[in-house]
């Protein structure tokens, strides 16, 4: 399926990209934090509240059936996108953080004191703190795969870090702060040889390239809807059926039960066992629409365009004196973190904002990475396929103007 990729055609589908910030056109380079939404997703949300709103899974009436069908169809769309074997393996969550907390609190309950969890030095706080919490509760040990100066995982010592006590390996597919694409295939294979289960944090990867959970053979995968052109407040946890069946429920409430008496409760089947309470219905339907839309695009062309943007911006930034890029891995997604000697990221971010450029400054919820490089934070420009070379030129000019003001 080869289609011609036209960035202008893509941009025309994102109404927010027409925004002006003062007299400047918006240049949105904060896609790592959240992506913008195409018109089809906005229309889908509007349609839901205008014509379909009803609670799902319980009503016999027409609207309830419509919204239930749409919600469950969204689950199937997402299943197909990830190439999961069954739709029961697709659990709707609030987002990546919620998904990791679910695994940590549910799978974690089956672990014993002394069991080990292996994560990496480049994780987002949401893939550190939930493990530290369950480790503290249950006497587990959290270990870290180290990284090198380029921001790549050092896998030489992986065989020593993986022990017979390692039960979970949880790592990010793509680093939100550095852009590094981790060789997850290799790590999944090594972990499985030791009998450990693997959680992939795909919050920063699925919006850039397709993954196949069966080919990868990961045990769990989590991601957020809002970073992949869908609504906020919804995300996905993929888990292998046998594992999800073996795990205890995470939250109790409506929808997750089969029968409830004063004495005891029997739990519902997958996926509902992990979906207590009325879910974010419009979120799920909107996410399904976003993924349907994404699937209709030429994903190879998208990736080529993003790689092109990354190379173009990297070259332009490297030409600026005293600028240092953090994260120079051989395999990178379209994210660039940098600092300029003698300037504070907050000053740069503020002056870029005044010129219509949206970037992120700070530690990006990855304080261990900042500690590694001994820096307080960076300026991060993260690109999506709706961004253009012209926007990068605008960004570089704005950056030069900011530097002139701060010198």
């Amino acid at each position, binding site marked *: 399926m080869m289609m011609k990729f036209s960035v202008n055609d893509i941009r025309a589908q994102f109404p927010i990209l027409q925004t002006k910030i*003062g007299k400047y056109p918006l240049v949105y380079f904060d896609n790592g934090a959240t992506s913008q939404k195409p018109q089809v997703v906005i229309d889908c949300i509007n349609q839901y509240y205008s014509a379909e709103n009803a609670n799902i899974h319980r009503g016999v009436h027409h609207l309830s059936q419509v919204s239930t069908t749409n919600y469950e169809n969204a689950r199937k769309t997402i299943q197909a996108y990830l190439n999961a074997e069954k739709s029961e393996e697709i659990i709707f969550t609030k987002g990546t953080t919620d998904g990791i907390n679910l695994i940590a609190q549910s799978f974690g309950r089956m672990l014993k004191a002394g069991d080990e969890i292996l994560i990496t030095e480049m994780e987002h706080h949401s893939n550190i703190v939930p493990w530290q919490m369950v480790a503290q509760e249950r006497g587990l040990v959290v270990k870290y795969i180290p990284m090198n100066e380029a921001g790549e995982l050092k896998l030489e010592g992986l065989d020593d870090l993986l022990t017979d006590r390692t039960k979970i390996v949880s790592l990010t597919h793509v680093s939100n702060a550095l852009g590094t694409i981790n060789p997850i295939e290799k790590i999944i294979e090594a972990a499985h040889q030791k009998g450990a289960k693997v959680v992939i944090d795909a919050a920063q990867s699925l919006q850039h390239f397709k993954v196949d959970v069966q080919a990868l053979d990961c045990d769990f995968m989590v991601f957020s809807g809002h970073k992949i052109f869908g609504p906020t407040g919804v995300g996905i946890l993929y888990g292998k059926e046998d594992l999800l069946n073996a795990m205890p429920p995470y939250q109790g409430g409506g929808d997750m039960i089969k029968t409830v008496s004063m004495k005891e409760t029997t739990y519902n089947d997958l996926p509902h066992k992990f979906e207590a309470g009325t879910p974010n219905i419009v979120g799920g339907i909107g996410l399904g629409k976003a993924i349907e839309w994404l699937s209709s695009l030429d994903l190879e062309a998208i990736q080529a365009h993003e790689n092109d943007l990354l190379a173009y911006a990297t070259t332009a930034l490297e030409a600026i004196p005293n600028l240092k890029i953090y994260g120079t891995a051989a395999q990178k997604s379209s994210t660039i973190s940098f600092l300029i000697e003698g*300037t*504070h*990221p*907050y*000053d740069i*971010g*503020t*002056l870029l904002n*005044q*010129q219509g450029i949206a970037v992120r*400054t*700070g530690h990006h919820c990855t304080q261990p990475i900042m500690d590694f490089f001994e820096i307080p*934070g960076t300026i991060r420009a993260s690109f999506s396929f709706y961004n253009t070379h012209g926007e990068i030129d605008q960004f570089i000019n704005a950056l030069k*103007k900011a530097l002139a*003001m*701060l010198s």
Partner: protein
Amino acid sequence: MTIEEKERELIDSFAIYEDWMEKYEYIIELGKDLPLIADDYKTEENIIKGCQSMVWLHAEKKDDKVVFTADADAIIAKGIIALLIDVLSNETPEAIMNAKLEFINAIGLQEHLSPTRSNGLVAMVKQMKMYAIALNMKQ
């Protein structure tokens, strides 16, 4: 000059500039005249929490008036704290506690530095008022 008079002067100074980039240049200039905090006071406990950059603030009383000194590791934060010190330093604790600081809105600082954790403008004002309250109780 009263606090209100000093605010009025600042509003007038900012009115000259049409473009916000020019206003920022002015803020950066103001930062260069910031009464710097003594190194001894540049401690962890004098850091204002809630700013993305490091801002140190000290206050002491001289003849019934509160005198502020500060420093920051970011140039714009330095300019903003200088702006606030310009208005609030050398005033009585009561005057500082009661200051409405309408110039912040009048200049448009509020909308350009939205009160989020990233800029700490709100945190700076709060800390200055806390100092005034503390020094008022001491007397």
